[in-house]
């Protein structure tokens, strides 16, 4: 888990107490958005995420077989007919992965959206209203933060009858909002004392108007990064639930594939094709989402960007590491650190400087 170190200050520098505090001018916003996409990490993440969304939509149509249909080839390794091999019943694993994408993405995005809405409601309210609201709401989010989420999700889902994707999404959403709420509260606390918010308050704007039009736009980056983080968590939790056999066992998702692989002793049979594709699918989705999050973090706080090449070879063959705010010092050298040579002083031709003459000119 990354501890968010970002601050909103860098996004909107010096929005003073103007009469009409606008979050950002449209032109500037467009340029910023473009800069976000120009970030290599974010772009890679977005492209991969786009591919997943595409397969979530078209997956069931492009799947070569019915994921439940049994075939003659039992536990067969990958071949031209079955690109990812088959299960113990001769089901096509590629089709299962493709059909499963939709369930995974739906639950992940729905749970992420629900948790984000909750975290915004709770975090911003606690941060802005302060006082008793803050105390009780922060206590609530801290409680949810400290209670181990996965065991809680497991026992609630196991107790609930039927299962189904909607229920799983609801349970994950309701249990995973706390981290976002905590971060948002901290940021709101620092925003509410800004001059433009004070100005809006002095103008007599209602509390909700201030929150929605003055505070929320400045929290966009944090909300987005919270959403992406929750989606990662939701996807992993959902797959975990399916893997241990609770939740949606009837519908296909990657966890279901792993569940069958584990229960049918795929490992002992050496059937690597059974569990590798689903796991890689999860890993690449998670990596894509993390990359988007790094992109957001670095966009907000440029210091976090991994610096390019910082080692430089000097003409004399020494390596120097450049760092922000430092003048490189060449260690282990007796020679002076500059290329300047002592200026030869010609005593014979020395001319005294006449300061008074200089001053009069």
């Amino acid at each position, binding site marked *: 888990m990354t*501890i968010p170190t970002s601050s909103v200050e860098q996004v909107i520098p010096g929005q003073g107490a103007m009469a009409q505090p606008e979050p950002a001018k449209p032109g500037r916003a467009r340029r910023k958005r473009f800069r976000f996409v120009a970030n290599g990490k974010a772009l890679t993440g977005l492209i991969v995420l786009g591919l997943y969304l595409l397969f979530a939509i078209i997956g069931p149509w492009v799947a070569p077989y019915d994921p439940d249909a049994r075939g003659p080839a039992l536990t067969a390794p990958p071949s031209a007919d079955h690109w990812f091999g088959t299960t113990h019943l001769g089901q096509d694993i590629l089709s299962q992965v493709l059909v499963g994408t939709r369930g995974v993405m739906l639950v992940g995005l729905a749970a992420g959206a629900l948790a984000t809405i909750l975290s915004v409601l709770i975090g911003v309210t606690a941060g802005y209203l302060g006082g008793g609201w803050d105390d009780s709401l922060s206590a609530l989010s*801290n*409680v949810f933060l400290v209670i181990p989420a996965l065991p*809680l999700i497991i026992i609630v889902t196991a107790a609930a*009858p039927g299962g189904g994707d909607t229920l799983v999404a609801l349970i994950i959403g309701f249990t995973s909002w706390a981290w976002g709420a905590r971060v948002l509260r901290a940021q709101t606390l620092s925003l509410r004392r800004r001059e433009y918010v004070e100005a809006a308050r002095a103008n007599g704007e209602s509390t909700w108007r201030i929150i929605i039009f003055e505070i929320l736009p400045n929290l966009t980056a944090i909300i987005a990064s919270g959403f992406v983080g929750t989606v990662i968590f939701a996807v992993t939790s959902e*797959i975990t639930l399916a893997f241990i056999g609770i939740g949606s066992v009837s519908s296909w998702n990657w966890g279901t594939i792993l569940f069958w692989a584990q229960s049918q002793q795929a490992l002992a049979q050496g059937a690597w094709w059974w569990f590798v594709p689903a796991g890689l699918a*999860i890993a690449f989705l998670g990596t894509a989402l993390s990359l988007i999050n790094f992109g957001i973090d670095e966009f907000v706080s440029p210091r976090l960007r991994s610096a390019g090449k910082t080692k430089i070879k000097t003409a004399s063959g020494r390596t120097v590491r450049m760092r922000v705010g430092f003048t490189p010092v060449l260690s282990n050298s007796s020679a002076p650190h500059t290329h300047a040579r002592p200026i030869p002083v010609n005593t014979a031709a020395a001319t005294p400087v006449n300061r008074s003459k200089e001053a009069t000119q």
Partner: protein
Amino acid sequence: MRYLLQRILFYVFTAWAAITINFFIPRMIPGDPVKSLLARFQGQMSTDAIDSLYVLFGLDKDASIWSQYLDYWKQLFHGDLGLSFTAFPASVSQVISDALPWTVALVGITTIISFLLGTGLGVLAGWRRGSWIDGLLPTTTFLSSVPYFWLGLLAIYLLAGPDSFFPSSGGYEPGLVPAWDQYFIPSAIQHSLLPALTILISSVSGWILSMRNMMVTVAAEDYITVAHAKGLSERRVALGYAARNALLPNVSGFALSLGFIVGGTLLVEIVFSYPGLGFLLFRAVGAKDYPLMQGIFLVITISVLVANLIADIAYLMLDPRTRKEG
């Protein structure tokens, strides 16, 4: 001291909340999934045991919810978590106390190693930004996105086998009796190597990342520049000035993310059939053994709370500002 008292109060409150959630969950189940199971064992159960289950699951609809709640607490204070359906004559507390040491040893030790290792690498990565360690970041991102259990599956497939040094399942050699002797301990260590490695690989990257980011932030502070200007050695500035300050948020992060980590590690136990709480929970879920599930949830939650408290005390020792008030 005031800080510590506040924290303790908070954990007591959280424990109360978790226990209350645990009280209400079985009461929200429509129908009585427990009743059928109760009927199955009716002949073999003592009346005391049946009473205790009635209290735990709220099957006595005559009593008000409030008196049920009081009874529930009374029972918890006696350490009575009901009977396990799967391990029938054994009580839940017995079953859990058999499994708990395994989890505490495996998860506790690997989490601490992972934290120390990750923080150390994070210090390096943050201080030497742009060196080869930055190239490590995408790899760690990928590894932290892989679910713990899948990495476990892969580890079993690649490293364990009939002829391999690493056993693929269990906590010790089947023929051995758990005891502190020269046969059992090496076997237990050998069996825990692969699960521990799995947990280490997937959890270490989170610490590297958060520590790196903190280091990068701290490295731009004025006091670091001053320390350099004083002519202190690079090493001293990195460890004594930057890392010390960057560590603080990471320690509080450690406390907060413990819940996530414990959740993930339970799954590693499932994959390796390691005789800890995770595997027990897995079996309980499979057999719909509700008393056992609830007991495990309570024990895990309380353990995480205790670990959090310890992390808070560590924070107290690291950060003088929290001590000043009291």
